[in-house]
């Protein structure tokens, strides 16, 4: 009996020795990685099979050293290094925190009570600040494994189960999928039910939603087609101005109208100014304001002028009179500078106002189309004595307040400053004396011949044109995405001064930019849709792919199976924007998202890593 026991023990001993020896032999062999590897890596990590050190860090224990000495340096024996994961998988500033966000900013939804021994033992973590990657992502589970698919139970390891399933108790969708006004103020309901049904537009209207929306490359999003393929058929004339009843161009450089009589009565040199408030009521254009601000006193003077009615200065204060005079002389100085130095004179002033240099591309977009000859012609026509007047003004010589009306007839207001020159100018022959008639060389005009140059109708396809009727140089948009308007709007938005932006962003402004493009807090949303990444960033907790759902739409309703048009008007920055659809009804999802059909796990719609 004892011999049998001894024999068995000897046999067991041999078995142990053989097995241990075999393991040591294999550990020292070229297959050592395979020996210690508890399973093949998942496909995304399959190329790392022979490089343990890319994920594992060297352990400090004797066993780790022994394995390393047996298998070689490449056989790093230690735990998985989270830093190695993060090196490739960017999870933002809080990669190891729950949901990869600052847990201080997380709303606590139904979290389990932590701290008990069994919970710590069972879940393998102690806090939400430093969750190891392998808490969820388990590798070495074979080539077919998917380390990014998880069960609801894994979510419920932290979150107390609040409802049975997606179909039983899931909260209804709120403001989904559109929780913010769209970047294009497109009223789907009105277009679908009114415009597209209109006889006039029916032949140009899309036949279904896919006429305007197409799948993104990965099938997740439905993108909006280009302007040319979607909106242009009906809205091209809105931009070029062909269909507009009002102004088709924007006054870029224009002389503001001033109550010259009152200003002359108030005293001080004004000189010849062609735009009298009694004849025309042109305000200070936003573009001119931008240039005026470059003057050291510009900001203060414009503040005064903002409280001043330039069209009637009879009750104005001395300060307002002075500001009006500053406006006229500074405008002259600007125009004279532009005439001398061209674009550089403008960009210098813009840079001074913005307090930052303009890059060449921006400068080009702002000014490249500005025709110098038109500008010089305009200045010469409106202010023929500009140089002499400026010199006289700078030398402190008295000047009369002289206005030339549209029909070329001169009108004068006596300079009440009492200067001698005023007396000469107020003689019987107004244009006699020492000062030459600035319009003497000009051909005599007939009454009603106010518009002497091609106007905005002449530049039917857009561009610069002189508007004698308003003493200005106007710009008529060339077409969609007009670079000039866009560049000026962006510069104005970046400057924090809304005047130009306000001019461009008025719903009925030439170009009609904000008829469709939403006005945002930082300017105008030029892009019709957010970039895909930003769309996903705006909804970091959920994801949805359109591609697998498109075949489920009703034959008649199409996309309206899920997206039911409904107009919600929202006022943003004083502009109306539309949220075009009702919230998605979760019951629609429930018809397919059952465990035995399309599945209804948490992570089918929710993201764990919000970044």
């Amino acid at each position: 009996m004892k011999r049998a026991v001894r024999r068995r023990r000897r046999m067991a001993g041999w078995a142990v020795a053989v097995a241990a020896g075999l393991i040591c032999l294999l550990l020292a062999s070229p297959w050592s990685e395979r020996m210690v590897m508890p399973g093949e890596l998942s496909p995304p990590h399959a190329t790392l099979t022979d490089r343990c050190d890319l994920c594992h860090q060297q352990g400090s224990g004797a066993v780790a050293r022994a394995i390393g000495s047996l298998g070689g340096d490449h056989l790093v024996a230690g735990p998985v290094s989270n830093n190695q994961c993060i090196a490739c998988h960017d999870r933002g500033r809080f990669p190891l925190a729950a949901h990869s966000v600052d847990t201080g900013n997380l709303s606590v939804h139904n979290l389990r009570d932590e701290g008990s021994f069994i919970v710590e033992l069972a879940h393998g973590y102690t806090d939400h600040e430093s969750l190891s990657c392998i808490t969820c992502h388990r590798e070495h589970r074979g080539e077919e494994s998917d380390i990014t698919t998880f069960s609801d139970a894994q979510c419920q390891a932290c979150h107390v189960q609040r409802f049975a399933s997606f179909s039983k108790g899931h909260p209804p969708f709120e403001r989904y999928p559109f929780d913010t006004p769209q970047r294009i103020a497109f009223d789907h309901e009105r277009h679908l039910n009114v415009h597209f049904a209109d006889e006039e537009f029916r032949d140009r209207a899309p036949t279904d939603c896919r006429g305007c929306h197409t799948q993104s490359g990965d099938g997740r999003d439905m993108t909006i087609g280009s302007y040319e393929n979607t909106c242009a058929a009906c809205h091209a004339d809105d931009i070029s101005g062909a269909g507009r009843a009002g102004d088709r161009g924007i006054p870029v450089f224009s002389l503001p109208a001033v109550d010259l009589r009152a200003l002359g009565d108030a005293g001080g040199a004004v000189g010849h100014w062609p735009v009298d408030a009694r004849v025309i009521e042109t305000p200070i254009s936003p573009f001119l304001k931008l240039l005026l601000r470059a003057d050291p006193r510009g900001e203060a003077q414009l503040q005064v002028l903002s409280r001043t009615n330039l069209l009637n200065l009879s009750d104005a204060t001395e300060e307002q009179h002075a500001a009006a005079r500053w406006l006229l002389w500074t405008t002259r100085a600007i125009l004279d500078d532009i005439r001398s130095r061209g674009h550089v004179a403008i960009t210098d002033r813009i840079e001074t106002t913005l307090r930052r240099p303009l890059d060449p591309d921006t400068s080009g977009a702002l000014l490249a189309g500005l025709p110098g000859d038109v500008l010089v012609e305009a200045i010469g026509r409106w202010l023929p004595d500009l140089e002499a007047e400026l010199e006289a003004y700078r030398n402190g010589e008295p000047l009369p307040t002289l206005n030339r009306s549209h029909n070329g007839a001169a009108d004068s207001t006596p300079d009440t400053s009492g200067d001698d020159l005023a007396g000469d100018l107020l003689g019987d022959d107004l244009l006699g004396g020492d000062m030459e008639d600035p319009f003497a060389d000009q051909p005599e005009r007939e009454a009603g011949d106010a518009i002497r140059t091609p106007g905005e109708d002449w530049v039917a396809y857009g561009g610069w044109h002189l508007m004698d009727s308003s003493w200005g140089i106007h710009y008529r948009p060339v077409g969609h995405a007009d670079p000039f308007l866009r560049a000026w709007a962006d510069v104005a938005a970046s400057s924090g001064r809304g005047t130009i932006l306000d001019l461009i962003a008025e719903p009925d402004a030439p170009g009609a930019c904000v008829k469709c493009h939403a006005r945002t807090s930082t300017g105008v949303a030029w892009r019709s849709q957010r970039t895909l990444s930003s769309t996903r960033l705006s909804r970091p907790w959920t994801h949805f792919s359109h591609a697998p759902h498109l075949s489920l739409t009703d034959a008649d309703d199409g996309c309206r199976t899920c997206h039911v048009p409904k107009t919600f008007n929202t006022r943003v920055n004083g502009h109306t924007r539309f949220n075009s659809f009702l919230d998605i009804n979760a019951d629609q999802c429930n018809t397919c998202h059952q465990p035995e059909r399309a599945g209804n796990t948490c992570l089918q719609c929710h993201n764990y890593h919000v970044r």
Partner: protein
Amino acid sequence: MSPAAARVLRCWVEPAVALLVAAALLLWWMVAEAALVRITTLTGWILAVLLAFLLCNAPREMLLRITRVPARFWYRLHAWVGILTGVTVAIHTGLHVPHGPIEALATLLFITTFLLGIVGLWVSQSIPLRIASIPTAVEAGAIAQHRREVHQAVEEVALRHAESTGDDAVANAYDRELRQEFEVPRHRLAHLINTSRVRRGIDRRITARQRRLNEPACAALEEIRRLASAKADLDELEACHAFRNTWLATHLLCSSMLGVLVVFHAVISLTYAGGAP
């Protein structure tokens, strides 16, 4: 403990406790399955304890001597712990063969050992009864000696008959048809599965000879029939002992190798597992 109480303990209490523990483990596994619960770690530690108990036979024998608890208690405990270990391994592996070579080998070895253990339950119940039921009661170590004695006895019967009667019919019959049955152990598998085919075959051959022989020769053949039955008993006895020994050796061999692989797996797991900055 009275025999009735022992029977209740053996038939009801032990299976009930084991089933409850197994059911609790399975239930917990189903609830926590695939969750963040570190089920493999927990079951791994449980397995370490259970396997240590199962594999460490020597300490068990020492405990047996110290506590004077009957050997059958340790045997039954070993069996139930083995079954519980099977359930725990099922949870630990998730009812899949692991992907790692060592882990896969360890799992296959465990399954083999576990099945051998199930066989062992049958062996431990049936083989002793079989051995006890064999009329020729011989110790395992004396079977070969007894077989040689039976062989000599049958040759003496044939020789004696030939010398006394001058008739070599019995000797010829033995030499041509029965010698092979006595020289070496035969029909082990048939004996193991407890079939009477072998015994009936020898009987038929002897009976067939007896029809053509005179009375003294028939008497000699009857003596040989008795010796053939004794030889069959010895063969059956040896088959039972051999089967039990083979089972024990295989179970032990598999257990020993499993122990090594389990230790290796545990060391590797503790070394590589876990996350760190």
